[in-house]
């Protein structure tokens, strides 16, 4: 860990908030993608659609 001196709180705070926001975005994106994949598979099963990929 580098010595951040008097600004340690500011630097670590900036990294913490950024990682939380970006991590949340990635998690929500993957969660929604998995749900959409399931929803399409279910709709295809119900209606006899053609798999798309």
């Amino acid at each position: 860990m580098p010595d951040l001196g008097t600004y340690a709180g500011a630097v670590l705070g900036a990294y913490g908030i950024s990682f939380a926001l970006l991590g949340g975005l990635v998690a929500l994106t993957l969660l929604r993608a998995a749900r959409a994949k399931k929803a399409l598979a279910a709709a295809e099963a119900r209606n006899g659609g053609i798999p798309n990929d």
Partner: protein
Amino acid sequence: MRLSGRVLPVLSALAAVSLAAGLVWGFFFTPDDYQQGSTVKIIYLHVPAALMAINAWIMMLVASLIWFIRRHHVSALAARAAAPVGATFTLVALATGAIWGQPMWGTWWAWDPRLTSFLILFVFYLGYIALWEAVEDSEKAADLTAALCMVGSVFALLSRYAVLFWNQGLHQGASLSLDKEENVADVFYQPLLLSIAGFVLLFVVLVLIRTRTEIRLRRAAALDQRGTARA
């Protein structure tokens, strides 16, 4: 869908590697700045996030224009997919900027032209996302959000160029420039470039995943509609 499915794992790996390399290099292996001290390490998040916040809106503008001219549904869905990513990058830029500003400027916030236009851009992102959610008819929603995107582009461009033509603000000049004299010092420049590459790739990966999600949801809705019509 097939092509994006094939390139996604490669792009995801590249995004993870460049982002990790840029941030680790910047955080652990660069010295403090003689004026800013260790707060200079915030630029590896702030500059790429701000850059991509503006570029995401420009990408949405291009996709919206394609929708208006060609009525290409995937372009409208791609614009929709990019909005939450751009909004998050804008929030990262605003938050890291405020955290950096407190010890350096003595204030979390100032009504500086660049900061203010960035805040307005964030509000436009929220409005754009809300409008997509509020309108049920997808074609109408695409039309309305495309029009909103064009209006918001004024603030995206203002955020980008405000430092060049408004001198009364607190915000310093651009950290990156084609003119080498204006750039940050070399020791910060290389990890910054790597971090920017990571943010660009992360944006591309997230927009691809989210566009594929939107396409799947639309296909599922269309299949259910067809099934209901048959019954």
